[in-house]
């Protein structure tokens, strides 16, 4: 179960490992048969997934339409660059703002809904946004997407850094990922983090204890929407365009899959693992077989059947098992009941 206690180090050991891998990636990517651009997308989706897991794993609210806010961020960034001539950082802030406004509005409808009805409302709203992205072609470029975005320079006043190369842009994205990770890590260990977990464990009880449950749900949904918007904005820069497909039900379903296959319900790091597994599977299986989704689907089914808490859950169980073995404890038999 995903439970955090109030006290946590600002930087944990796993975090250091993650940062080390993140920041060294361009140095060994080529040798490992990978490439920089792949890293860019993986890191962007890690940001997206970490924010999404705030909602799914920590608060227990399944959103199957989160692609909408990712997409709104992507379009937000693109439009900011095309019409407001906004630079990299202002553009990203506007992308976040767009994600915040869109998810905040939707959250007004959602924050009083629970369980399956919550999930279905997210689908319905997600479809509405997706539909509008295709329909409002004057603004969004329709199904062809919003094109001709360019990778700008980051303007620090005194000097500028060009993001044209994948190498430079990778580091920009990686630094943002470091910031987002630190921020979210603090957040889940804050009183607010305790509150959202209380909502997940028992919404009714959380209400009795005195939490303003709808307000917590609204805030966490909006926050994850803002982070999705940021990630969407980054993908827009990476691809130099924004496409409606990122808002489709399929794309929204995939982020849920990634987070869960990694173990978002049991670990802060589940989403990170899930995104990496998905992208590597796609890149490696995808270059071997056209039916890669068949194999990925089977893998996913197997995970849901045998280790529904994902890779992180399976890992956790393995670690616990090894530890118990070491201590020579006898494993207790019998069925577990929740």
């Amino acid at each position, binding site marked *: 179960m995903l439970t955090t206690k109030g006290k946590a180090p600002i930087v944990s050991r796993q975090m250091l490992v993650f940062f080390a891998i993140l920041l060294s990636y361009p140095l060994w990517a080529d040798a490992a*048969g*990978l*490439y*920089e*651009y*792949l890293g860019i*997308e993986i890191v962007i989706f890690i940001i997206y997934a970490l924010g999404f897991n705030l909602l799914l794993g920590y608060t227990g609210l399944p959103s199957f339409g989160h692609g909408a806010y990712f997409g709104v961020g992507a379009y937000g960034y693109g439009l900011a660059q095309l019409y407001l001539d906004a630079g990299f950082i202002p553009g990203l802030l506007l992308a976040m703002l767009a994600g915040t406004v869109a998810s905040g509005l939707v959250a007004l409808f959602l924050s009083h809904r629970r369980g399956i009805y919550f999930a279905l409302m997210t689908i319905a709203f997600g479809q509405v946004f997706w*539909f509008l992205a*295709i*329909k409002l*072609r004057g603004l969004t*470029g*329709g*199904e*062809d*997407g919003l*094109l*001709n975005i360019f990778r700008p320079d980051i303007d620090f006043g005194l000097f500028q850094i060009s993001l044209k190369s*994948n190498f430079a842009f990778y580091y920009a994205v990686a630094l943002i990922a470091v910031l987002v990770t630190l921020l979210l890590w603090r957040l889940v260990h804050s009183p607010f983090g305790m509150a959202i977990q209380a909502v997940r464990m028992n919404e009714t009880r959380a209400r009795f204890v005195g939490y303003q449950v709808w307000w917590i749900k609204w805030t966490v949904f909006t926050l994850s929407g803002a982070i999705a918007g940021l990630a969407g904005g980054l*993908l827009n820069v990476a*691809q*130099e*365009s924004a*496409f409606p*497909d*990122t808002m489709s039900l399929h794309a929204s379903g995939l982020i849920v899959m990634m987070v869960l296959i990694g173990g978002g319900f049991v670990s802060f790091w589940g989403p990170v693992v899930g995104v990496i597994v998905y992208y590597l599977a796609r*890149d490696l299986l*995808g*270059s*071997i*077989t*056209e039916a890669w*989704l068949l194999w990925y689907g089977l893998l996913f089914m197997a995970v849901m059947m045998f280790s529904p808490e994902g890779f992180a859950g399976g890992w956790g169980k393995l670690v616990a098992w090894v530890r118990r073995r070491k201590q020579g404890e006898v494993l207790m038999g019998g069925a577990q009941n929740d």
Partner: protein
Amino acid sequence: MSTTTKQRSILNRALLAGTAIAGLAMGTSQTLAADPIVIGLTSDSSGQYANSGASDRRGMLMAIDEFNAKGGVLGRKIETVHIDTETTPATGSRVAERMISRDKVGYLIGAVSSGVANAISQVAQKHGVIYLNTNSSSPTESGANCHRVKFVWDGNGANFAKAAVKNTIASYGKNVIQVTNDYGWGHDTSAATKALIETYGGEVSDDILVPQGTRDFTAVLLKIQQAKPDIVAAAVGGDDQKALRSQVAELGMGQDYAWINNQQDWPDVYGLPKENLFGVFGTTWYYGLDLPGVDEFVAQYQEAYPDTKMRVPGNVFYNGYWATRSLLEAIEAAGTTNNHDVIKKLEQLRIPAEVRMQHDDAYMNPNTHQMQQTVYLATANTGSDDPDDLFTIVSHSSPEAVADTDADASCKLESFEDTPVNQP
């Protein structure tokens, strides 16, 4: 299609290592053969255009096999990498990035969906990699979204509409209803058609927009019946079009109005009942054309692909084949793989009619990078029992008669200075 091409990048390394070891073992001082030219095939193998994508790819590979059989290009073998672009622009973008940066491809070929073509061409332009849009027929591909590195080989919506509209209004009447798929390609095609309808004296009394993903056209068909037009001009694509076709055919409404449909890609209609193929539509090529060389081409196809369900090559295959062949010929003519030189050769491309197996000479428009070629107007061939012989060619129009004149105005190619030099 050979399955080995997909694993090429992995095989490459193994082969390279193997050759190196073999070379050492034999103790020869033989120099390694020149590096192969790697071409990235970006056609879809899943999603809405999966089937066309497969046909497209078969065309490319047949051209590549021809060249490899005579020793490759500039003495270098041609290898291919294929990754599914899933009929999804965002995937197209990533696949292009991967192919360029990891698989080190020199050229990218293949697209059916204009969204994917667009996404790939942006990446290609950034890296200066020549990209052939084989089969996407959106007018914007050689208009607003044209690029210096991109060449478009299919006829576009404007070409096809020009071929169809004049004829139909003269024969059937002036009152036209348009049915438009409510997305970019639909609107572009519909707008081009509307302008033509008005030019030739027709009147558009209604434009029924149908959202992408529509599976049930009964409401639309009821409206058409209530309005009783002479002509229905449909710009409905992909799966939607297939649903529309079967529903019109079922009601027998194909004969009641003159239907002008957009282009019919061969893989989309192959195997469907002929009554589903009502109305007229444009295409760039048909295997039943009575021209020299066609029979040999069909025979070559059947020999190369004895197991495909489609027993004859269609327009998508044709475009894929010719795009690839023209690129390889341009490289040979340029004597170098340098992208700027190859682009210049392609811009001057001119292929005689008898070589292209069309009625007119085809040539590249250097301002829009779209191939100018004969456009055929076709309808269902209900008179034949041959399951392959689906079309009757009604007429053919010269490239000049159907030229997309708006494209020249809206296309702004990047300068050569703004296009990175690339010599694969």
